[in-house]
């Protein structure tokens, strides 16, 4: 029998596994970002960043993270193209069937997330790699990456902060369907537990984006 990941169900399984891994990663990311809100001149945040950039375990997980991003995006593109090809002639009347609203726009919210990811990489990760340079006055110590001041520099720019918050709203839309959909793909649909999974998905899709969005709001309006 052919390989599991060549089938439609197998491709979706791979994409869902990568997606759930990214959800877990984002929780860690949020935890570290929230340290920016501590009024300690970025002491704890810098410690977290140092841990994330030097710890051997994190260094091992880092390539897995990139692989998860790649798998999630590439398989999404493959499945989406197949889905478009499955209906070459469209209906004249838009479909009125009752279905989950956000599920209809996963590829659109996905593309927005990808666009932001590129921006995020240019602003942070590429700076770490030395491919792009940080904003002026942000990197006072040679050889160190001052992510704390880089973040503050961006979050005090209203245009960047608005883009950042808008992105997280779209990310919330994406999660709203993605989380519970992944469990359905895993084959986990249960009378008792599925409502709980849907609730956790809804809570995640609201609380995680809200957690990230609080940070630029704080730096724009309350930070002195």
């Amino acid at each position, binding site marked *: 029998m052919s390989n599991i990941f060549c089938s439609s169900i197998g491709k979706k399984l791979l994409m869902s596994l990568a997606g759930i891994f990214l959800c877990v990663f984002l929780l860690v990311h949020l935890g570290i970002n929230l340290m920016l809100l501590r009024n300690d001149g970025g002491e704890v945040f810098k410690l977290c960043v140092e841990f994330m950039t030097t710890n051997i375990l994190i260094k091992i997980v880092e390539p897995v993270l990139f692989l998860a991003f790649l798998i999630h995006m590439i398989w999404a593109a493959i499945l989406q193209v197949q*889905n478009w090809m499955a*209906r070459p002639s469209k209906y*004249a009347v838009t479909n009125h069937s009752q279905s989950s609203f956000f599920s209809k726009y996963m590829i659109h919210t996905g593309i927005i997330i990808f666009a932001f990811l590129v921006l995020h990489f240019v602003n942070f990760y590429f700076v770490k790699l030395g491919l792009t340079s940080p904003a002026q006055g942000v990197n006072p110590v040679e050889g160190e990456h001052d992510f704390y001041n880089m973040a503050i520099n961006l979050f005090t720019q209203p245009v960047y902060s608005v883009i950042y918050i808008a992105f997280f709203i779209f990310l919330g839309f994406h999660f709203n369907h993605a989380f519970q959909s992944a469990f359905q793909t895993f084959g986990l649909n249960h009378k008792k537990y599925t409502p709980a999974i849907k609730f956790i998905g809804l809570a995640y899709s609201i609380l995680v984006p809200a957690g990230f969005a609080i940070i630029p709001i704080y730096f724009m309006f309350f930070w002195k």
Partner: protein
Amino acid sequence: MDFTLKIWRQDGPEAKGKFVTYQIKNISHDCSFLEMLDQLNEQLVDKIEKPVCFDHDCREGICGMCSLYINGRPHGNDSGITTCQLHMRKFKDGDTIVIEPWRAKAFPIIKDLVVSRTAFDKIIQEGGYVSINTGGVPDGNAIAISKVDSDLAMDAAQCIGCGACVAACKNASAMLFVSAKVSQFALLPQGKPEAKERVEKMVAKMDELGFGNCTNTGACEAECPKEIKLTNIARLNREFYAAKLS
């Protein structure tokens, strides 16, 4: 009741289709949707015009032959019914009704509103059955089956293979159909011996025939005239993983 009908007309599989508008008057509100189309066809035949081709057979909601995508919904604006059970009282007098065929690469149009659903037959041929040696009728209680499982199997077995799930899905996915056909056997002891081969071959055929991939939107469940549940798709996924990993 009077209606304006916009109907997809297409002379053959390769012909270019288009919408043609018809006016139909004095339709009883107790008339079924297909009876309304019958009346339209009688008028067209009287005028020596080609009648509209559409699929139908039992006209009591159990054969799965009738289709029609009516005003943006497979089987029209009602739930848990096929087009033959849709009545004109569900519309308002003077409504414009747009009637299209199922649209999917795997369901090519034969003529007008008739599509080929042979793809479903091909999927069934891959294992949507139980191979048995027929003989004397076995004792009804020889194999114990729990009431829960037998009810779930019977619910899945209600699928009439009309294709509304494919028509409603934004991806033209056949997962609900395949999941019902796999589930009705997966839940019963008689289906166990061939379970692994069945699910692998039916999914492979579904992929090969050009159906889209399920993105769990739920449109199929909402439009299924037999109200087949999404839990069957989860079961299909479980059966598929179990088969591939064993």
